């Protein structure tokens, strides 16, 4: 009886250890950002970041949407954890169980440049509003 219990316990430990999640890289990019569409100037590598977002975690982006982008959330989380970095450089995305892990380096915009563009390149620009709505005569 005791032997069979020991075997059962060993089996459970083996299943537990064997069931551990392994990280598998599924995508790599030079830079990713959830806040900037493009960045002027030269980007420099800052401190390393290692962030993960799992199904069931509270979305960082907030909002009322019930649809969550796993990569979106992990990028935003990484940028916020790196002090609102404009982007994450050398981004490597891994899957680990129901989580997405992002490893890379926080981007540091150079002092001379680093001006970020929040508009997409072909988006129509809004006309300036005429305050008051009256024409000058």
């Amino acid at each position, binding site marked *: 009886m005791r032997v069979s219990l020991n075997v059962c316990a060993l089996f459970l430990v083996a299943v537990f250890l064997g069931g551990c999640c392994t990280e598998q*890289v*599924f*995508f*790599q*990019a*030079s*830079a*990713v*950002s*959830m*806040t*900037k*569409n*493009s*960045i*002027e*100037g030269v*980007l420099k590598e800052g401190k390393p970041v290692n962030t993960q977002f799992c*199904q069931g975690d509270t979305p960082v982006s907030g909002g009322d*949407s*019930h*649809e*969550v*982008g*796993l*990569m*979106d959330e992990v*990028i935003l989380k990484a940028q916020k954890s790196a002090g609102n970095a404009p*982007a994450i*450089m050398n981004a490597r*995305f891994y899957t680990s169980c129901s989580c997405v892990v992002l490893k890379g380096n926080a981007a540091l915009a150079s002092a001379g440049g680093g001006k970020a*563009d929040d508009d*997409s*390149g*072909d988006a129509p620009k809004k006309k300036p509003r005429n305050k008051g709505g009256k024409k000058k005569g």
Partner: protein
Amino acid sequence: MRGLWVTPLLFVFAFTTSCTSYRWAKEIKMVAFSDDVHKGKSIGEIEGDDCIYMVLGYRLGGRPQVGRAIRNASKQKKSSIGDSMGGGESGGEGVRYINNLSVKPDGFNAVVFGKDCFAVTGLGFK
């Protein structure tokens, strides 16, 4: 009698868990394939995918991959049945970066023949 308690609990569980759906990428503002991420010239909306074909339920290849779908989108490449059977990645010069990138599952299953894909859309910049 005990079942009376279980049924509403099941409904509450189903309601609370079905509220959130997860996707790989909903709308990533920028994914760059080069260190040069200054504002470029838009080439408009780009699409790409990574598909695995199925015959009589058997997959001709592994599973579609998100990373390959995004790389295909950067080269504006649609996958073909040849890719499913071990075709390599090919394509011309890609875009420098993509704005508003989204990844959606796609495909169909008509029992005899099927297709399982990840479809990527976004705005390409060179």
